[in-house]
């Protein structure tokens, strides 16, 4: 039981990091970045490109690199659509997803590439009752630190205060002398970097494949609908909860179908019961 919960939390870590990036970007720009799945995939391929020995370097270099790419994208294209209906940016990032996926397919083909478990994390950690693979413990710890760090940054620091102010009342913040536009690009880059980090972490555990992000992003969409995209806490909590539920259903119901459609069933239930998400705020009717 405990073991399955743990595995679920590890699976939820990937969902949480991607959902967190999505929620941070949405909070600041009102943009849902469809390309987040593709960025996750690029993160994994980035780790692959730097070869297995350099996992620790990849853990830093790849997210930073992708974050910079995200900032460039924000400056060059996303920004141009900022004044329009957010759906246009959804469409734009969908187009970018197709382009990025096919570029990677072109270069690496469609078969999965293996990635060795990084040196130093090959063994297992003894928790008394169970042994857990060290790498999975590492993933969970990193995800927990990052999620906590983002929460701390947003709710307990001056930087977070400014970002939250820009998110909630952009006009008022601007009137009070905050340069709102200055924060948009770094926040977008940061959200993208989180997806990249999730991708690097996923490389040793999951098959590295050009379509690995496409399947993930749809689950993440369901997760953020469950948690309420406007709420960063809700998105992360829903991600871990779905991870655990998936692992438990897989272990006890012995049905791949149930564990795979579970997230959508939960989403349907949430839409029925609380359409704005478990932790989301009521939308304006428009």
């Amino acid at each position: 039981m405990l073991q399955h919960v743990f595995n679920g939390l590890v699976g939820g870590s990937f969902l949480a990091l991607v959902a967190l990036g999505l929620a941070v970007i949405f909070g600041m720009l009102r943009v849902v970045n469809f390309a987040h799945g593709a960025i996750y995939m690029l993160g994994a391929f980035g780790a692959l490109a730097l070869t297995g020995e350099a996992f620790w370097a990849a853990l830093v270099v790849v997210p930073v690199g992708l974050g910079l790419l995200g900032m460039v994208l924000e400056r060059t294209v996303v920004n141009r659509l900022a004044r329009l209906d957010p759906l246009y940016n959804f469409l734009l990032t969908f187009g970018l997803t197709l382009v990025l996926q096919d570029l990677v397919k072109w270069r690496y083909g469609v078969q999965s590439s293996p990635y060795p478990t990084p040196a130093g994390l090959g063994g297992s950690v003894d928790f008394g009752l169970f042994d857990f693979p060290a790498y999975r413990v590492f993933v969970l710890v990193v995800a927990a630190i990052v999620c906590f760090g983002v929460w701390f940054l947003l709710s307990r620091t001056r930087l977070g205060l400014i970002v939250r102010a820009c998110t909630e009342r952009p006009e008022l913040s601007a009137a009070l002398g905050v340069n709102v536009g200055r924060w948009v690009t770094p926040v977008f880059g940061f959200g993208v970097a989180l997806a990249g980090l999730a991708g690097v972490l996923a490389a040793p555990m999951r098959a590295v494949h050009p379509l690995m992000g496409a399947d993930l992003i749809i689950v993440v969409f369901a997760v953020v609908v469950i948690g309420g995209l406007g709420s960063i806490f809700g998105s992360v909590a829903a991600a871990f909860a779905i991870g655990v539920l998936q692992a438990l259903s897989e272990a006890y119901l012995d049905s791949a179908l149930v564990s795979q459609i579970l997230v959508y069933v939960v989403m349907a239930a949430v839409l029925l019961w609380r359409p704005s998400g478990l932790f989301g705020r009521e939308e304006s009717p428009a």
Partner: protein
Amino acid sequence: MTESSALVAQEMAEAERPGPEPRGSALRRNARWLLLAAAVVFALWLPFGLYPAVAVEILCWALFAVAIDLLLGYVGLMSFGHAAFWGTSAYATGLVAIHWGLPFPLAVLCGALTATVLAVPIGYLAVKRTGIYFAMVTLAFAQMIYVVANKWSSLTGGENGLQSVPRAITDNFYFYYAALPIVFGGLFLAWRIVHSPFGRVLVAIRDNPSRARALGYAVHRYKLMAFMLSAFLAGLGGGLFAMGHRFVSLETLHWTTSGKAVIIVVLGGIGTLWGGPLGAAAIVRLEDWLSFSGFEQIGLVTGGIFVLTVLLFRRGVWGTLFKRR
């Protein structure tokens, strides 16, 4: 869809202007009939100019695009999960043709009705959200249908799909002309919906949901009705697609299929009805040409074109060419 909605609102204001008809409107009406006649002639000529199989495919995607545009252009709801209806109808059409031996128009109708039934629960839940959430929710539900179809291989054939769907008209050239009346019927249905009082209410809901609600319209119910009609049209297209290929694959349910249809709509022009068939012809022809010339990264090209369209020609081909600002 701020731009297109402003556009349609302006057009509606023009259409509803009281008093004597503005000068030149008779000419414009004639031009419209000429355009329609030209389109019909073009549709009749199409299988002479292209491979008939490609022509059939254009018909299917044209219906699919119009189905999505009915929601996107006239209700302001962007469904990113219409593959659920297209693919479900494709499977249902294939299954009734294989197991019951129904002739193809009846099989397609069965498929489209199945899609409409599926649209009831999905639509009921999805219309509780709007905007970007609507897109995500429909996408997620479509993925659920995809997973179910993948696992339920005793019915759907799983990864192998439905093989050798029977069809009386084996030659694609003649099948095109057999399919054409169904497609015209679907397009006429869409045109009727848009120009009916029901369609006007949809546009009112799109432009100002609060006011529509205040006027006593049951907004959710109208949206659900539009969603079901859209699913029916997508189902007609999907059923024809199954019959046209005589084969149904899981790809018909995949999110890339939904995405391709949305690309077609935006490229053709949101909220124009003409844009759907135009975009379908362009994209299907382009993809056929790309795969014929051995280029496998089709997503690179269509995705790139789409990015440029969204950045530079948001009004689409039809909107840019034929709609005044």
